[in-house]
């Protein structure tokens, strides 16, 4: 099954095309330029360079968050537009579930961390070493203290990765102490091939989302909603 994957939820803009057993191509940019300007040209190049007829694409996998709200929408609006135009289904993948695949070879804890602004991170905990990453702690938006408490509670080394390291490496290292491990730069960030991998898994497990029923995984209310809820409390 030929699947196209997109990810624009973090600083990386990435597209990939693959069958279940084969990654045909993956183009990624981590240059903090507007994803809106980069995504479609990357995709056009990917299709042209692989020589694949786009009408042969059978589905789209896209990250639904957490991450930058705008980034989530650029990726999802593009994926849904492709789905509508090509007449193929979409499968939604969370950014953290996709990232966890980069730590699949580690038998210990794997902790993807994304910069959530406002001195917070999006994170979740997984266990690697099996066929698929096993979720140990669900995704949440939280402070670094909450993250370090969660990791310490498990009392075993954790492998950190994700763009949250760019800003919080020092703090994470001191918070996790001797339990801190880090995935090297070549495999630390979001890539669409990870989205492809998780997309295939979800597709096989429960099938794609019904048409247009793909929900963004913002994980956080908009500022206006948050203030409104506080006031009405």
């Amino acid at each position, binding site marked *: 099954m030929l699947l196209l994957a997109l990810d624009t939820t973090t600083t990386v803009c990435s597209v990939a095309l693959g069958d279940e057993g084969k990654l045909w191509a993956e183009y990624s940019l981590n240059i903090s330029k507007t994803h809106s*300007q980069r995504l*479609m040209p990357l995709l*056009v190049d990917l299709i042209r360079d692989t020589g694949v007829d786009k009408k042969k694409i059978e589905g789209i996998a896209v990250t639904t968050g957490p991450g930058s709200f705008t980034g989530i929408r*650029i990726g999802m609006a593009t994926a849904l537009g492709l789905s509508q135009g090509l007449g193929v289904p979409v499968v939604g993948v969370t950014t953290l579930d996709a990232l966890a695949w980069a730590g699949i070879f580690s038998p210990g804890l794997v902790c993807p961390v994304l910069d959530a602004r406002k001195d917070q991170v999006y994170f979740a905990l997984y266990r690697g070493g099996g066929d698929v990453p096993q979720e140990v702690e669900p995704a949440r938006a939280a402070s670094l203290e909450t993250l370090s408490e969660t990791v310490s509670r498990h009392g075993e080394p954790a492998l950190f990765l994700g763009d949250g390291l760019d800003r919080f490496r020092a703090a994470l290292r001191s918070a996790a102490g001797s339990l801190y491990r880090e995935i090297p730069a070549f495999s630390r960030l979001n890539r669409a091939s990870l989205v492809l991998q998780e997309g295939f898994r979800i597709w096989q497990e429960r099938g794609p989302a019904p048409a247009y029923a793909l929900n963004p995984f913002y994980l956080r209310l908009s500022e206006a909603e948050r203030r409104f809820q506080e006031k009405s409390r």
Partner: protein
Amino acid sequence: MGHKTLILGIETSCDDTAASVVGNGRDVLSNVVSSQESFHQRFGGIVPEIASRRHLEVINPVIDEALAKAGVTFADLDGIAVTYGPGLVGSLLVGVSAAKALSFSLDLPLVAVNHLEGHIYANFLTGATIAFPLICLIVSGGHTSLLHVKGHGQLEVLGRTRDDAAGEVFDKIARALGLGFPGGPVIDQLAQQGEGEKFSFPRALMGTEGKLDFSFSGVKTAVLNRIRREKEQGKPLPLNDLCAAFQDAVVDALVEKSARAVEYLQPRQFLLAGGVAANGELRKRLRFRLAPLEVEVIYPPLEYCTDNAAMIAAAGYYYLRQGSLASYDLNAEPGLDLENP
């Protein structure tokens, strides 16, 4: 001529998600607008993040509905036109991303349309024959500009507001009077039962020859002060008279500057565009004042005055004919202006 050129228009610049199919830049086959008004009411105004979230939820069904209502499929289309600015950046990005993805997957040419220019093209949906050069007055919640339009995509700004947009002032006064949002239609309605002579508000015509700029902050402040003083007296507000006097002041300025532009450039046609183009008093007074100047005054049908995608598709048709296509690195331009379309 058998086949009509069919353009799918997509518009998400503010809080309405809209899609439309238009034939030959004139014939509206469908015009779907999904309003978000109820989502923003509890916050007392449009919240950009919430508008963007809502656009993403409804854009694909809105496009499907536009195709279904037009009785066409993607295979019948000849191009896709999308608003890329000005507007709320998060809102624009949803439409731009969707349009690029559709254009790529369907191998359809993509056209990027300036929202303000789109408003001008609402006049092409009237059935009237539009001939350049002409003068156009765009009046909306975000803009008030007098334009000299010399051809498709050839615009010269003759005058613009130096402070508030006319529509914005209508909204602010409506809020101060407790009339809700948007303010234009309610004020227009109440003013019809009032007497504008009961109050006198400044016109801000700014005498200098050739200067066609507008200013509405003076009127706004005067009306707000008046409302405050009336409230202090503890009597019920003379709503109708206040609305009539305020509307008179704004409409006077718009009409007078328009007349000066017409006298100066002597075009054959004068177009009205934008949300405030729906205002009955403005339509009436413009026609009356411009009649002796031998200029044909054209208004868009009411449903095409407010934001819609039919006007975007209409503008897109002419761009497509000119071969002005957008590339896939098209970005949203929230601050896009009219000077360099």
